[in-house]
């Protein structure tokens, strides 16, 4: 029987399809090039502005006059075209789209590799480049090769201080950085039901770190309840013995806190193996782990205590910021010594607001630890929010315990 990707794209794996795009997303980074290509194509209007989103998140607010100038042009373009425009401070595009916009069964294409995040809703969500986005603006559709699917089957439930991020690092380690190249991942099994939407977004977010085209969850009760909280109605779907090219199995109940090191996302170790390594910075945020649930978890650990290293917290969206403000979480974080950045990508891509210096190490809740990504000569360790929180308090890599996250 068909996989979720095959159902959505309406053709068996291996075939080429032309499909209408339900949501087309670009940001201030890729939008500039997409705009340029769009003009060069000689097209005047965006075909389906109602499906088109331009969200300023990557360098937000602008860091130089050059950036500000490019953003000014894009803003102007957005106004002329009547698309949905979200200016700086609205949040990271993937999070904004996860707040009641993307629905199960949609085809979602973003000019950003982490668009796969939105597969958490049972949408076929994938990243493309800027020129592809320009063609989507022009035509309202795009072509795909329908991917084969690898099943990532979760059993058991998360225990202790382990969280969805650890499960994500575990499957990236199991598959490797190109283990799912050209393929889709489906997260299935009893274990997935116990993971709330925030955690599913984290799981799907890292699908691209295995080379996958998309990472999908079947929409279930959790999905419909989450969407209902935004006033969106959606239907559930269940797997019907889909044809998988491969299957891996992970027991959530045996997971311990993990950390990716050595400039490779698939180079994953137990946090315990690195315990005591000194840190220069801790960063909690990004499209992987900057959601309300993440900042709540962080605040529970650091509240009424003081962080020992500079700790940058960047909410993934304005909605997240509003909620942590209303619930007093923000003041707990600020009192504990955390520094708050505006909703957006923050230092994740090494362009502004918290880049690293030569020889510095940052423990980050992001998804990539490539060489020089957060600044020339810096090193990035990727881990969960709980690991980031206890490590911030200690000033060194620390294993979170059950008591820390209660």
């Amino acid at each position: 029987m068909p996989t979720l990707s095959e159902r959505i794209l309406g053709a068996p794996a291996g075939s080429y399809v032309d499909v209408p795009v339900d949501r087309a997303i670009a940001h201030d980074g890729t939008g500039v090039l997409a705009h340029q290509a769009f003009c060069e194509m000689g097209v005047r209007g965006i075909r389906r502005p109602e499906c088109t989103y331009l969200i300023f998140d990557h360098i937000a607010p602008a860091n130089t006059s050059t950036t500000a100038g490019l953003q000014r042009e894009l803003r102007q373009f957005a106004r002329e075209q009547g698309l949905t425009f979200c200016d700086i401070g609205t949040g990271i595009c993937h999070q904004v789209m996860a707040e009641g916009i993307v629905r199960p069964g949609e085809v979602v294409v973003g000019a950003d590799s982490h668009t796969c995040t939105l597969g958490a809703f049972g949408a076929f969500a994938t990243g493309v480049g800027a020129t592809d986005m320009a063609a989507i603006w022009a035509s309202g559709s795009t072509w795909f090769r329908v991917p084969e699917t690898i099943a990532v089957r979760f059993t058991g439930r998360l225990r202790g201080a382990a969280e969805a991020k650890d499960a994500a690092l575990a499957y990236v380690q199991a598959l490797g950085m190109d283990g799912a190249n050209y393929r889709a991942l489906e997260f299935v099994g009893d274990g997935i039901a116990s993971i709330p939407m925030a955690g599913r977004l984290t799981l799907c977010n890292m699908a691209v770190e295995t080379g996958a085209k998309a990472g999908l969850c079947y929409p279930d009760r959790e999905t419909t309840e989450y969407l209902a909280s935004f006033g969106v109605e959606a239907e559930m779907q269940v797997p019907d013995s889909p044809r998988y090219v491969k299957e891996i199995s992970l027991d959530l109940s045996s997971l311990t806190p993990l950390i990716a090191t050595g400039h490779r996302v698939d180079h994953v170790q137990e946090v315990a193996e690195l315990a005591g390594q000194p840190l220069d910075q801790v960063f909690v945020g990004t499209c992987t782990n900057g959601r309300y649930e993440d900042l709540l978890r962080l605040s529970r650990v650091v509240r009424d205590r003081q962080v020992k290293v500079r700790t940058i917290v960047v909410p993934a969206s304005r909605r997240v910021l509003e909620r942590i403000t209303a619930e007093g979480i923000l003041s707990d974080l600020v009192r504990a010594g955390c520094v708050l950045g505006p909703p957006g990508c923050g230092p994740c891509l090494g362009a502004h607001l918290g880049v690293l210096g030569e020889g510095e190490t940052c423990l980050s809740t992001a998804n990539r630890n490539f060489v020089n990504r957060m600044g020339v000569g810096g090193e990035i360790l990727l881990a969960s929010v709980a690991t980031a929180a206890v490590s911030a308090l200690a000033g060194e890599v620390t294993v979170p315990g059950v008591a820390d996250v209660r």
Partner: protein
Amino acid sequence: MYGEGRAVCLGSDVDTDRIIAGRYLRTRDRALWAAHVFEDLDPTLAPRLKGTVLMAGKNMGCGSSREQAVIALKEAGVVAVVAPSFARIFYRNAINIGLPVIECRVACKEGARVRFNLAEGWVEVDGSRCHATPLSPKMLAILQAGGLVPFWRNHQ
């Protein structure tokens, strides 16, 4: 689609951050990207890329969707990129920009003469030929047009 160039060998899992670093993205100046291409991998590479065929290891171009990575390579004079496997966005971007990408498992010899024909699906390194994974007709048509922008203009 025929082409040729001198081989430059690269390792596996070369990510787009290493092809062009995030710190150089805030511009539309293509010459700047060409000047800083591979800076974090090997700073001596950029000026040596004209007329070369990059022969990378598996998973070439993984990571961010940044199209500036393929633009930088093309601007620097790279003729084609050969690898046993590509990260999918990089692969698609290259075709959209009109930079030939060839999926083929072949040993690299630094400086060797590389010839290829995409329509016929082969790559030759110092005279020994191997078969490449064929492109879909649409991908080939886009590449032959010189990229998605000219392809689109022709099909209006």
